[in-house]
């Protein structure tokens, strides 16, 4: 692989997880990690295990909820879902990122 995968910062992984939950609804840790890998087209260097740190952070802030349940394959898994406050936070963060990307794009294009 000539190109290196992008290293993810803590804050950006949190945002990805939040967005994934907003889009997918209730999901367990493995599912979220797989989804992020797929959606990002495998460009993201993601040690799947690091997602649990993200999940606990988001949970402690009250942006996602967690509950033990049964997956489709009859496995016990912890399911996460976004809360109303989480949705609000997501909206703010997305707006911020869009603005940031636009400004960076402008500055780097000159």
């Amino acid at each position: 692989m000539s190109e290196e995968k992008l290293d993810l910062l803590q804050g950006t992984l949190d945002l990805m997880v939040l967005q994934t939950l907003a889009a997918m609804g209730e999901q367990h840790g493995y599912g979220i990690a797989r989804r992020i890998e797929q959606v990002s087209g495998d460009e993201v260097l993601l040690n799947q295990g690091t997602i649990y740190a993200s999940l606990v952070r988001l949970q402690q802030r009250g942006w996602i909820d967690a509950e033990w349940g049964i997956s489709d394959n009859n496995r016990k898994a912890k399911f996460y879902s976004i809360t109303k406050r989480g949705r609000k936070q997501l909206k703010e963060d997305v707006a911020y990122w869009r603005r940031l990307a636009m400004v960076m794009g402008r500055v780097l294009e000159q």
Partner: protein
Amino acid sequence: MKDGWLEQAWNRIRAFFHKEPLDADLEAEMASHLEMAVEENVRRGMTPEEARRMAMVRFGGMQQAREKQRAARGLPFVDVLGQDMRYTLRTLGRDAGFTTVAVLILALGIGANVAVFSVVNTILLRPLPFPQSQQLVWIAPPPQKCGLSCATYSIDAYEEFRAQSRSYQDITGYNAFTGPDNLRLTVGNGEPQPLTGMEVLGNFFQVLGVHPMLGRLFDPEDTLKGAHWVVLLEYAYWKRQFAGDKGIVGKEIELSGEPATVVGVLPESFDFGAVFSPGSRVDMITPLIPDYERDDGNVIPLIGRLKPGVTVGQAQADAEMVVPKLCWNIKYPQSCGSYVNKQGASIEVRTLKDYVSGRLRRSLIVLWSAVGMILLIACVNLSNLLLARAAARGKEFAMRSALGASRGRMVRQLMTESLILSGAGAVLGLGLAWALVAWLAHQGSLALPLLSTLHFDGQAVGWTVVMAIAAAVLFGLMPGLRMASGNLIETLKDSGHGASAGRKHETVRATLVIAEVGLACVLLVGAGLLLRSFLKVLDIDLGFQPDQAASMRVVYDDSAANDDARAARRGVIFQEMIARVSVLPGVKAAGIVDFLPLGPNRAWGTPTPQGKTFPPGALAAPLVYVCTPGYMRAMGMRLRGRDFRWDDGPKSQEVVIINAAAARTYWPGEDAVGKVLMSGNTQLHVIGVVDDVHTSSVEAEKGWQIYYSAMQRGPDDAHLVIRSSVPPATLAGSVLRTLRAMNPNQPAMEFQPLRTIVDRAVSPRRFFMLLVGIFAGLGLLLASLGIYGVIAYGVTRQTQEIGIRMALGASRGRVQRSVLGKTLSMVLIGVGVGTVASLAVARLIASLLFGTEATDPMTYAGVIVLLLAVALVAGYLPARRASRINPLTALRTN
């Protein structure tokens, strides 16, 4: 702040306390994650083994995931701290010897610092124990040679000053001539007990802002002529004499043969002696009746409470305007304006706090610096010790660094070690300081103001914490930084640290020791200078012999029809007293005087030599002493001419004895014996000249003294002075019995050796000198330990090298000399630096020295010799060890 941070903080704390269930939860989640990943991989077509491997690879490090999750959910800082602490306690526990020494050194340094801080806080920093104490000022004439009489005002002057001044809410004063044991309390049929009663003006407590604990304060009626005698009890006396009887208010007591009523008890926080007369105790407060003292001349110093917003400078200007209007006694109009000093300032207004403790500021700052230096030396020493320890653990740190520990983490762990050591030292030091403070507060004979109010409080504890942290940073930072920056590979190699790393190490340690020696040198020079000053003070010719002599206050019946009759009766009583006491076995001489040296004194009159004129202001009022024949012999004063005789009575010519300084001024170059002084119209015949006696303080210049015969002038008091060939204390009982046989009303007064009076006068100087001396000794001990440590370490490090040298033919003596030479060179540098620093510091304390120059060569030479000797002793053991090295063994080991 982003939404939810408070919730997160709360959840973090909760997670900290629920580690196990949360860990178990995570394990379950991760297991489930892996199972699902394996399933998916299998579905994609991988074999079970490969599916598992891929799943693990995709997952990333399991331990890393766990740690990240834990760090995200709990209080990682606390966890790390806990880890560090447990580890530190383990390592310290393993090295019990080092830990004990380190903690003890720290306890000593921190404890001493906190104790001194408490003393400085009590005497210098804390405001006086009165409400709004910054408003209280001391108003007095500037210090002059005529002692206490020139430092006080008369009643008339006080009343005028009070009326004319605009700056004060009120002004008060007390009778500065009150001596100890001036009253007697008779309870029932028991022996009269002596006690000290202080006379104060009626508004004394109101001005100070002191409220009685029981009963009331003085009323204006209590200060009128003929008023019934009322007293206020000091708290300590009330507890001691009346057993804290709550019903004491209103009770009648018999005081010096008169009835008196106790009207109140003062609160525990008030201690007259602590503020106004350190080193002495006051038991009762009685009202000063102005009309009785109006003709007694200067009696009261003035204490005023400034109006809010008035500054001391404004009060000073106000006072200077009022001073010319003051009359010494309004019955003599020519005495008005007599308080104006033509040469300089006539009156001084300063804050009461400044009067009480300003004199000690310098000494206390010196003390504080000295004790701070001790802690500094201790920290340098510990730094050295820790460096050596860290060097020994070099491999451990290299390993940890190789395993991924960040430099910050290792420094933090070393700092934890320092903090724990200094924390333990601080706890022990607190105990030490508490004990020291408790002991100091009870040293009643130490004439330091406010000493009895010394107590251990929150500020002292706070200071302990500050000191502990400062010490930890001081001695922990250096080793920590050094260790964490070591060369990894070099250290891990089996052959140990390379020669260059070790040498650099040793240079650092040697530098630290040089610093230690320098600091110890400064302390030693300071202590040495103070010691020489103290010895010079002790050496001072006091003018009398304090050893083998003691004094006791005597009571006699002074009632008679007129002055002449009284004088005659007095003569008879005194002569009888002295005759009876003189025949007691062991008594060599006895006499009576009204004021002892180094105590209160007074002055009146300005006698002038007959037939000579002096420019106005050239002659000051000499201190006046009234005494009997035999007094001077009892005191061991050197007299030329003749002593008073018992027939120098009211009918014969008035005779006086003057001191040498007065004689030199009155009749320079001539013999004063036989000459006449004029006091108004009275002729005073000089019958003798006595050598100068130190009257107000041991270190101050001697003023002029004039002695009158007790049969010709009225003594204000009566102290019986006895010189004995046996220890005076053994005579106390028999003297008292003899006096009681003559006068059954004689109370059991204290039989005070004169040496005690002198000791009390020099007690502050002795106290400081002792403390600084102790600190200097400690500093020397620490420095010598430091020297030993570095030299010993150097020898160990160079074992191989020394072995080689010996194998190549170096003799034992040569090796020893080289080690000692290294020691000496290190100490010489330290001494050099220290001497330069001492010269600078000594200049700062020059005002505390007596009869000693700040550059006193003997002291410096002595200190240098001492340090070099110590260096030799400290280097001796390692030198011996070095010379004993067996070359074969040395070359074999690594």
